[in-house]
């Protein structure tokens, strides 16, 4: 019975795959083309890279909610109970030196990615990932200890970037819409939001690794 169900599932999945391939191979051209619209409005978006313009301006509201999703994932970990602190005494002798060498470079790389976001793919999330990696490296090298679950600093950092985003979104309601930047201030607003977010997201990502239950 179990095997029968298994094979039936595999058969169904195969059929699905076939149908999908067939469907996309015979797809007529799309009636709506957004690339042109993006290009037409790029000049007033505040950034020069179309993807960044979509991410932070045209569909900035998606990004706003996406940050909340990341925070929620961390909250889920807090709710489920933090893992115990890592065992000490299994120190990797190469790591401290490596970390001291690499972390400044990573900081530079993070800011660079943030900066590059205006012109090419990149931006707050990539910057945050690199910063978070730096924090993890420091932690693995035992230069940075684990964060206890009631640590205020990381929480403030995570909340801070998001609250900045939220405040800008709310303040812009004056213009008649969530996150509706006035064209001349769009660039500044986006840089502000991205800078705040990169710190907030970095701490958020690092927290998955560094937040640990207090030693019992």
């Amino acid at each position, binding site marked *: 019975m179990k095997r029968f169900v298994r094979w039936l599932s595999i058969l169904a999945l195969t059929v699905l795959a076939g149908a999908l391939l067939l469907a996309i191979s015979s797809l007529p051209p799309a009636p709506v083309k957004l690339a042109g619209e993006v290009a037409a409005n790029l000049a007033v978006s505040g950034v020069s890279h179309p993807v960044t313009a979509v991410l932070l301006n045209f569909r900035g509201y998606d990004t706003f909610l996406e940050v909340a999703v990341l925070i929620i994932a961390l909250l889920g970990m807090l709710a489920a109970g933090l893992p115990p602190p890592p065992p000490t005494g299994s120190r990797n002798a190469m790591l401290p030196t490596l970390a001291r060498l690499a972390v400044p470079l990573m*900081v530079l790389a993070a800011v660079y990615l*943030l900066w590059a976001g205006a012109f090419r793919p990149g931006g707050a999330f990539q910057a945050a990932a690199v910063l978070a990696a730096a924090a993890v490296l420091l932690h693995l090298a035992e230069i940075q200890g684990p964060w206890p679950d009631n640590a205020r600093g990381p929480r403030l950092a995570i909340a801070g970037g998001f609250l900045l985003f939220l405040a800008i979104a709310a303040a812009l309601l004056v213009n008649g819409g969530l996150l509706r930047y006035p064209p001349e201030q769009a660039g500044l607003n986006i840089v502000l939001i991205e800078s705040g977010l990169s710190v907030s997201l970095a701490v958020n990502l690092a927290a998955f690794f560094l937040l640990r239950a207090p030693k019992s």
Partner: protein
Amino acid sequence: MIVSFLRRGTLFALLWLIASEGNPAAWPLAVAGIAGATVASLWLLPAKVLPPISPAGLARFLIWFIRQSLAGGVQVALLAVQPRLALRPALIELPLTVPPGLPRLLFTAALSLMPGTLGVRLQGDTLLVHVLDRQQPLQAEELAERVAGVFGGAR
């Protein structure tokens, strides 16, 4: 302090210039990034801890290292394509002569990229090394010398 700040700041600024391909846009962000990296660097690696680096020694090391690395790559490639695996691996305890910290890191990293050797564990003043061919001589002595050369000959 100020000197090392400026020195490292220049280094990071150079790196930024390379990365950004000289694009001057949004320079305040660039300044922030360079400053951030410099501060982080000074915090993590205070000037007094960092041994002085000899540019000439570094250059000599690099040329030698690229040659060694090429040899290492070729050796592994040959081993891999041989119909019969001609491996005689072993774990060897290697006493270390280079001082701890950056020199030792450079030594271990380079050793792993050179023909036939792979660092497995640093413990105290010895390095456990995995070799592909236990009959092949280790180049540890020479590597140690060249690493020492990078750090101003201090040994």
